[in-house]
């Protein structure tokens, strides 16, 4: 099973981060939430691997009170 890569993999991390924040400029909180959701869905489809996605969900929920079903993956 493929493993979620959490080692550095972005060639230009600062550029990516700037773009991510810029993407939300001028959006309301609701609009930002929608844009984020769309981004998650697009990336999830690109990854495609259910195991990797489950690991990513678990990592994202790590430290949160409510982990939902993601931790079970």
């Amino acid at each position: 099973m493929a493993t979620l890569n959490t080692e550095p993999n972005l060639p230009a991390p600062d550029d990516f981060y700037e773009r991510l924040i810029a993407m939300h400029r001028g959006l309301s909180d609701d609009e930002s939430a929608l844009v984020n959701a769309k981004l998650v869905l697009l990336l999830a489809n690109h990854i495609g691997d259910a195991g990797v996605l489950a690991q990513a969900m678990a990592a994202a929920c790590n430290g949160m009170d409510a982990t939902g079903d993601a931790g079970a993956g």
Partner: protein
Amino acid sequence: MKTYTNPVFSYVRPAELDAPGARRPVVVVGAGPVGLAAAIDLGQRGIPTVVLDDDQTVSVGSRAICYAKRALEILDRLGCGQQVVDKGIGWNVGKVFCRDELVYRFDLLPEPGHRRPAFVNLQQYWFEEYLVNRVREFDDVDLRWENKVVGVVPHADRVDVRVATPEGEYTLACDWLIAADGSRSPVRQMLGLEWEGQMFRDRFLIADIHMKTDFPTERWFWFDPPFHPNQSALLHRQADDVWRVDFQLGWDANPDEERKPERILPRLRAMLGDKADFEIEWASVYTFQCRRMQRFRHGRVIFAGDAAHVVSPFGARGANSGIQDTDNLIWKLDLVLKGRAPDQLLDTYDVERTRAADENILNSTRSTDFITPKSRVSRTFRDAVLSLAKKHAFARRLVNSGRLSVPAILVDSPLNTPDRDPDFACGSGTMIPGAPAADAPVAGPAGDWLLGYLGGDFTLLGFDAAVGPFGVAVEPVDVASLARDRIPCKVVQVGGNPTAGATMIRDVQGLAVRRYDARPGTVYLLRPDQHVCARWRAFDLPSVRAAIARATCNH
């Protein structure tokens, strides 16, 4: 209603009001689609049956309208499939709109070479009327209207049923009680049995309208349409130019107000336009739940259909699964009643059908979470999917306006004999043990479709284009002896040299061989409900008998 007048079935004074009656093998509570299907199956097997219903007519309003291929195939075995298909409206295309844009289109893509289509739409009252007519052909089935069950007392050896009629009460004793009395099941409540699951905090207006229109015969579903902002809507065609309209109203809607024509008409006008010429036939406001009983069998009381499990209507998984319940149950009950199988066989009804119910509840819950998001973030993701679906194919697969009913595959059933031969196809859609038999066009003495030759009893289906599957053994084997066994098994042979005792059919398009991944000598054993329970590359009598024993808990 303009297009349908509910028949009034007259109450007949039951003999038990005047003198205690004999104990009955089976009493069925509820003359809805599931209870009637059970009664017909029992009638076909010659089991004397009493059906009790508290009403005196069929369904008021269209209610369950989508009948799936597997349900139609079961109805064929019960002798009512053709009427339902002739009267019903076949459809294949579904469209999903978000606001005024088409975001997703599906086509059930009918594969040729099956007798029955993927779906037909038919109002429940027509469906029930046909089944009532069929029930009346059996002298052994006593259908009693205005006979309301008011008490159920289970005993180790029988069940006593207390029945109220317009002329007083009486008690009926039976070996087995089938409770097919709907989602509010009085029998379930009288026995104090719980059912578990969740209710969804949303309300829907459902209306039948009579309308002559050139709208296509397709299932149309809208999220957030301009005529009904922020909610969903559904339009679906039924027989006699009646259309089903469904509006999501939200949890805060007042059901008593929303039912009034002055509230419904503006909604319909907004949807259909000022020029549309229509009349409201029936309307109701409903909520829904996804629940099931933990067990469907409680001693001698057996629950089927909505009494045992309920889902949301999106996906047509109510009546279609209820009819599969009785299809699964009645042959088992028949063997138990005849003393040819132990009553543990009835526990496998529970195992097989609770699993099917779980699958339906899972699918229905997922659809409901998409249509009625339960949280803000759930709503955000839903809207994100709909927004992406306009441009991106991947997101269309996530749009969920109801995943339509598919037949249960009894994969892990204890009644299956696992494959011994490793080279059988076992991917999706193949005839693995547990799968319902696939249809195919054939030629033979009993009609043009393979399914017409299978089921009722156990059936051994053998394939051979050359020597006959039952003739390959060195010693001639008397397959006809299977029909004389304690649990009889009929034999059907596809192609090859005629074998004594086998019904010969021809695979006219080669589809039976393909769908069953067959080679010369391949044999399948089908249960009385047409599910595969064993298959082999070569025939031998002891293996067949062992598989029948296993499929009837006789081992």
